[in-house]
């Protein structure tokens, strides 16, 4: 009998169900701790400056991944930026419809080489465009826990 024929006759239970029962608690790391403390306590963003490579990383890092030098200078880079790219999401992870479409954007922070991915608020999905100036909206200080959800999203910059 050919190999595949020998192996393919099957009248028995076809699969076994189970799960991998672990969950996770992540620290943010040395740089991440500083970044989220600034979000929680001051409602601002920090970046890390590598003068040798002329790069400002947002979020900050304790090392420059180009030249590998230690980065000790964390600076307040403010909360203003622009939309570098975006997408509009209509579905939840389980395939059900979202109650309203959400705009997810890569927001470059002004004056830096880095940015944050977050939601855009206060703008219609037809009006979003690359380059749109935006600023971060934070939860009230007493509701912040030190995490990405302390940021509610970004809205068009009010001049």
């Amino acid at each position, binding site marked *: 009998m050919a*190999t595949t024929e*020998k*192996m*393919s*006759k*099957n*009248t*028995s*239970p*076809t*699969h*076994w*169900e*189970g*799960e*991998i*029962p*672990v*969950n*996770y*608690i*992540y*620290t*943010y790391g*040395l740089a*991440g*701790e500083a970044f*989220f*403390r600034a979000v*929680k306590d001051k409602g601002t963003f920090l970046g890390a400056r590598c003068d040798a490579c002329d790069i400002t990383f947002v979020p900050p890092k304790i090392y420059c991944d180009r030249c590998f030098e230690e980065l000790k200078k964390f600076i307040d880079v403010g909360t203003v930026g622009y939309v570098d790219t975006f997408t509009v999401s209509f579905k939840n992870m389980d395939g059900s419809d979202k109650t309203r479409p959400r705009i997810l954007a890569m927001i470059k922070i002004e004056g830096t080489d880095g940015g944050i991915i977050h939601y855009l608020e206060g703008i219609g999905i037809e009006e979003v465009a690359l380059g749109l100036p935006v600023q971060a909206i934070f939860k009230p200080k007493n509701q912040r*826990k*030190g*995490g*990405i959800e302390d940021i509610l999203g970004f809205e068009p910059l009010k001049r």
Partner: protein
Amino acid sequence: MDLDTCELGGTPLKSSDFEKCKVLTTEWKPNLGYAWDNGVAIGRYLAELKEGRIIARVCHECHRIMLPPRMFCELCFRPTDEWAYVEDTGVVNTFSIARVNWDASRRGPKEPPLMPAVIEIDGATKGMGIMHMLGEVDPDDVTIGMKVRAVWKKPEDRTGAITDILYFKPIRAAAPKKAAAGRKR
């Protein structure tokens, strides 16, 4: 270079640092559910367990009678040739007396220890062992080389799983031996 003169990275935290929120953290509870294909061999293995039987596969080249059964022989690297029933008795190859659960939690003082073992099943090639549990035996009386027999779930309770065998118990009640130091603790 001398490690003693270098400043080493790594900032140690205590569990209390987490409990008292001295460091910021974020949590994730992944939903990692799986449906693993059994394949032909394990599918039949489970079906036979439901009937109260243990089945193996035979390779005609190396003549091994293999448990768990497999559709190819990993030594000869060719398909295996036939099914063969084996006994539901065996010999203890090794064992442990466990007071720790899968997640490192400790078993309570009134909970009996678990007794996992490797059992060489009679009828399979010598040394062909499967992992299972021992039961109806005092931890101090378990020995390597002890003959055991499977204790099955009632037919109506079996589902086609390795747990259709509840555990293996000694074939003859062992005469009480001098307690092996530390096993019961």
